[in-house]
């Protein structure tokens, strides 16, 4: 009893000295922090920590949503507190971690999770416990089409991304006179790979583009030489890979080893947007194209990119990329909703999220903005197409925001 009184007194004093400091807002973040996708998870962690600092600490205002600092003003300056959990890139472990974060750590929202396979299980848990799941960087189109009430996604999904690729094919065809006549699909055997390829197959049929090869492969195989041989035999105008980092490096090497230089590669980002891929594949990556939801070079129209990137680089010694930029944005959007809700109750936050309407210029993304439809999907996320030159991605489409002319070898 004595001890209890002591604890109570200490707590009361602490509260008094903090001048009724508002309670922290606990958000759970689930990422692969060990295992094959660990680096992506660790980079995401760094990005979230940078964004949490931007929201929580006092600093010169950054021209983006929640960029003025000092905590959540409508909640008495409450701070965002992130608790990270390791999914090991395993859907079942991700499910267990989501339960733990909600029931044990009392997270009022979950954010995550890189791979779509893990997002599928996490969002089932958040639906059951009725807390918002903010999908920052999962790209499978099926995720928001399951009738979930608590699922929100700031990022475009692979249907939107793939549509952008095929629009680019049309426009570059008109511009150069060299149309895309055939594509080869190359995708891993996961929800990410199959959803992505389904959309691409459909878009190709719509545009009467021939699918010359349809290569589904096992992720993290010791060798991709058989797959490379199939791609070589098809010799399509454009190869469309949906792969994570390790397989992205491997397939480029495997194609080179059998003397095959594809005319064009248009990647569903993922591994192709990672620095490890650019370093590992080296010269082989030159000319590769990828969709992206982020354009580091769009600093003119998005003044927040420079200061946010500087903070991130100071912490993690690399530039923001397709994934980490989406993480920063998702947390900013979630924090903005919590702030507008003026409450830590999940139901209030959900309502605020549905009312979100943020202009693209108030983010670091090249999007038109952030506004969720009834499935929780942001409808204003407009992707860009980028191409590797000198080991760095440059934006090449839409043509009005491009910083470089595309190198287009199709039909030559």
């Amino acid at each position, binding site marked *: 009893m004595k001890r209890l009184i002591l604890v109570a007194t200490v707590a009361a004093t602490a509260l008094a000295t903090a001048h009724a400091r508002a309670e922290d807002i606990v958000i759970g973040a689930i990422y692969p922090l060990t295992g094959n996708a660990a680096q992506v998870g660790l980079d995401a962690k760094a990005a979230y920590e940078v964004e949490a600092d931007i929201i929580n600490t006092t600093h010169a205002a950054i021209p983006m949503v929640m960029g003025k600092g000092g905590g959540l003003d409508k909640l008495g300056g409450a701070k965002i507190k992130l608790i990270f959990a390791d999914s090991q890139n395993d859907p079942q472990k991700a499910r267990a971690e989501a339960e733990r974060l909600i029931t044990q750590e009392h997270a009022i929202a979950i954010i995550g999770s890189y791979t779509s396979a893990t997002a599928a299980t996490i969002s089932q848990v958040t639906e059951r416990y009725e807390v918002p799941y903010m999908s920052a960087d999962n790209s499978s189109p099926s995720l928001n089409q399951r009738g979930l009430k608590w699922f929100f996604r700031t990022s475009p999904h692979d249907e939107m991304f793939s549509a952008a690729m095929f629009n680019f094919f049309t426009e570059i065809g008109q511009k150069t006179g060299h149309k895309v006549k055939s594509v080869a699909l190359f995708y891993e055997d996961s929800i990410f790979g199959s959803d992505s390829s389904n959309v691409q197959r459909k878009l190709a049929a719509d545009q009467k583009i021939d699918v010359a090869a349809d290569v*589904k492969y096992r992720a*993290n195989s010791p060798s991709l030489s058989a797959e490379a041989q199939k791609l070589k035999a098809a010799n399509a105008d454009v190869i469309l890979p949906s792969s994570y980092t390790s397989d992205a490096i491997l397939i480029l090497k495997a194609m080179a080893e*059998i*003397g095959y230089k594809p005319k064009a590669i248009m990647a569903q980002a993922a591994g192709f947007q990672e620095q490890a891929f650019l370093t*590992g594949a080296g010269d082989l990556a030159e000319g590769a194209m990828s969709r992206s939801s982020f354009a580091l070079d769009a600093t003119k129209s998005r003044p927040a990119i420079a200061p946010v990137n500087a903070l991130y680089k100071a912490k993690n010694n690399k530039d923001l990329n397709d994934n980490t930029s989406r993480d920063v944005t998702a947390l900013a959007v979630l924090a903005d909703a919590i702030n507008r809700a003026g409450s830590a109750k999940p139901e209030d936050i959900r309502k605020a999220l549905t009312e979100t309407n943020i202009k693209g210029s108030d983010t670091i993304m090249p999007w038109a903005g952030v506004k969720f439809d009834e499935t929780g999907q942001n409808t204003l996320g407009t992707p860009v197409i980028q191409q590797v030159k000198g080991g760095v991605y440059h934006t090449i489409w839409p043509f009005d925001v491009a910083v470089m002319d595309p190198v287009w070898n199709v039909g030559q």
Partner: protein
Amino acid sequence: MSLDAMLQVAASGLLMGLIYALVAAGLSLIFGLMDVVNFAHGELMMIAMYAVFSLWQASGLDPFILLPLVAALLFGLGMAIYRLLIARALAVRFNKGMVQIFATFGLAIFIRGLAQMIFGGEFRSITGTWLGGRTWNLAGIYLPLPQLAASLVCLLAFAGLLLIGRTEFGRALEATREDREAVALIGIDRDRIFALGWGLGAATVGVAGVMLAGFYYVSPNVGANFALIAYVTVALGGFGSLLGALGAGLLIGEVEAITAQLLEPSLKQVGMFAIYLAVLMFRPRGLFGKI
């Protein structure tokens, strides 16, 4: 499919098969010697890959030059693992099998965690080596030089291991394998033989790791991609049979390459596992097993 394409499939399967065999050789050696399945086998290979990567980064020397150094390092590491861990696991009085499994399995998790702590989770690649990215075009059949070199080294390593088998040490190894109790009576230090066996097994997988690093990425989990196939190779070839491991490796490489062409590539391991199951059912000692 054209003749060229078929030959290319066969050649790729052959090169990959020899690499599988080389990875499996050390595992087969240790298992044959003392009936211990080393679940940290893939992790030893990963250590060798990081070792050659770090040495290459620090010195700029080609992996070929670093090969003996890394093999020696792994030899020492293998002996240390035996002395510090396996010897103790073998000495327990009850549930020996379980203790051995958990000891090496725990070691695997520990090594993987340690690698991520030291090197991070990034995928790393050795670039600008003598053979890196070069391909030999043999009348339309492409043979990537790093894989070709790895295959030759594999054959040399098997020849070396078979030669060792003819020396006094090799005969002691064989005797210990056949009857570990009786050899003590004729003055063979069993503990020393076991330690050297572990050293040799680790050095062999070290050689595999160095050759692999010439064309494959390095990451804390890289061992797992190859370890499963190594276990299948050893079981298929017959536990403890070195030539069996070589034959089984080649078989797996070819079956995998052909399955990928006939079925879709995501099912390319189906053929290999089907053969594995059939062998387990009808010839459990393995294709070339003596026991």
